C-alpha cells in the first residue's frame, strides 16, 4: 500500500505563490499614476497588437501583466461584466470597486482550488469626476486587493521601479510630468525608452463619456519630448 506523501498547507501555498510570482516577474512592468486631469496608464510593451492596457468602461481602465492569455481573458470578462451591468441598470451604476472585488474572488479561487494559480497581476483604474475621486485597485495573483489614489507598479522588478516613483511622485502633476516620471521609472538610469517601447493611455476628465484615450505616435513623442 502506498502512503500518500504529506505536504503541509504552508508549503503548498508557498509553492503556489512562488510559482505565480516567478511567472509575473518574467514580464516587463507597467505603471499607473493619477495626475491632475485623470489617470495615466503606462506599460512597457513593444507589441502593437497584444495589448496590456485597455478600456473597460466609460471611466474605467485596465492594465495587466504576466501571462497574456490569462489576463486577457479576465479583461474580456471585465468588459462583459461592465457592459451587462450598464445595460441592466444604468451607466452610472458601473464602478471599479465591484469589478475589483469580482476579480479578487476569481484570482483567490484559482489560487487555492485550481491546478495552478493565475500568473497575473492587474490594475483597475477609475477616474472620478473630481481629482480626489480617482482610484487605483491593485490585484495580486492570490486575490489580494489594495486600493490607492497615487500610483501603482505591477510586473517584473516592481520594487525597484516603485522606489524610483516614490522619490519624485507628487499630487496634482500635469500629464507630461506624470508621463515622464512613469517612463523614467520604468526605464531606470541605464536605459532609454522610446515611444515604440511603450503602450500609453489615459482616462482623461476632458475626454467626454468614454474617457479612455490611447496616446500613440506623434502625440506620445511630443509629450515625452
Amino acid at each position, binding site marked *: 500500500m502506498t502512503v500518500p506523501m504529506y505536504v503541509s498547507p504552508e508549503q503548498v501555498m508557498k509553492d503556489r505563490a512562488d510559482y505565480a510570482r516567478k511567472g509575473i516577474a518574467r514580464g516587463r512592468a507597467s505603471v499607473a499614476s493619477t495626475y491632475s486631469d485623470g489617470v495615466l496608464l503606462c506599460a512597457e510593451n513593444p507589441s502593437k*497588437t497584444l*495589448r496590456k492596457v*485597455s*478600456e*473597460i468602461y466609460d471611466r474605467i481602465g485596465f492594465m495587466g501583466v504576466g501571462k497574456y492569455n490569462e489576463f486577457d*481573458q*479576465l479583461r*474580456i*470578462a471585465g*468588459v*462583459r*461584466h461592465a*457592459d*451587462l*451591468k*450598464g*445595460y*441592466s441598470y444604468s451607466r452610472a451604476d458601473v464602478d471599479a470597486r465591484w469589478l475589483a472585488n*469580482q476579480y479578487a*474572488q*476569481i484570482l483567490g479561487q484559482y489560487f487555492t482550488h485550481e491546478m495552478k494559480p493565475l500568473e497575473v497581476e492587474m490594475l483597475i483604474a477609475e477616474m472620478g469626476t473630481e481629482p480626489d475621486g480617482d482610484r487605483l485597485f491593485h490585484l495580486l495573483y492570490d486575490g489580494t486587493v489594495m486600493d490607492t489614489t497615487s500610483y501603482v507598479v505591477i510586473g517584473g522588478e516592481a520594487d525597484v521601479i516603485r522606489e524610483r516613483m516614490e522619490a519624485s511622485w507628487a499630487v496634482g502633476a500635469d500629464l507630461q510630468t506624470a508621463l515622464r516620471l512613469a517612463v523614467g521609472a520604468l526605464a531606470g538610469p541605464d536605459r532609454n525608452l522610446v515611444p515604440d517601447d511603450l503602450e500609453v493611455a489615459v482616462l482623461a476628465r476632458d475626454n467626454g463619456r*468614454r474617457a479612455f484615450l490611447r496616446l500613440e505616435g506623434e502625440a506620445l513623442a511630443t509629450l515625452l519630448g
Partner: protein
Amino acid sequence: MTFPLFAPAEDPGPSFVALLARLGMDRPGSDLGPAASQGLDGIAHGTTVLAIRFADGVVMAGDRRATSGHLISHRSIEKVFPADSGSGVAIAGAAGPAMEMVRLFQLQLEHYEKVEGSPLSLEGKANQLTLMLRSHLPVAMMGLPVVPLFAGYDKQQRRGRLFQFDITGGRYEEQDHAATGSGSLHATTVMKLRFNDDLDADSALDLAVEALFQAADEDSATGGPDMVRGIFPVLATITSSGFERLPDEDVASRTSVFLDRLSGGAR
C-alpha cells in the same frame, strides 16, 4: 449578476447580443404570442427621419413627433442618435422597441470595439443592424415594426455612406439620400429635386430642414418646426471627425431663414 467568465468552447465572442443570449438575458418579445397584437393602438410611433450624403459625409435628420393613432403622444422625442463616434442611426416605427434597439445597437458596437480592440467596419455595423432587425421580425409582424436608417463615414473608402432597412432586416445601400417613416414619401420628393453631387454640409443641412418641413406639411404624423415651444428637428452631421449634433439655436436659425424664403416666395 455572476461574473461572465466562460470556458473557451462556450465563449460568446465579441457580440453583446450573443452574450445576452448565452446568459438567458435576451430581449423578451418574440414569445409574447398573438395576444400582444391586441390593444396596440395606444403605442407611440415615431415618424419621419432622413439622411443625405454630401461632399464630406452624411447629414441625418428627424422630426420630433411621436403619435398614438390620431393623437400626438410626444412633441419632442429624439429619433437620431450616434451609433458610435463615426456613425449614426435614425429610427421610425414603434418608439419603444426602436429606442431599445438603438440602445442595444450602440452597446453592441462599443462592446465589439472594446473586446476586439478595434472598431467594426461600417459595413460590419450595418450588418449588425440587419441581424437585430431579423430577430425583431416576429414582434414587427405583431404590429410593432422598427424601420431604421444607418449612416456613417467610411474611413476606408473616405466617404459618407447610408443604408436603408426594412422590417425583415433587408439592407439597401443608397447613394445620395434616404428617408423612412410616414412622411418619407414627401421628404424624398424634396431631396430628389434638390439633391446634387456638390452639396456641402451647409446646403445639405438646409435641404434636410426643407425636406422635413414639407413632410410635416403633408403628413399629420410628422411634426414641423414648433416656433411657439421652440422645438426643432434634430440635425446631425457625420464626417471624418465624427458624429456631431447641431445645437438647437443653429437649427432654429436655419428654420427661420427657410421660412422667410418660403413666405417671401408666396407673396
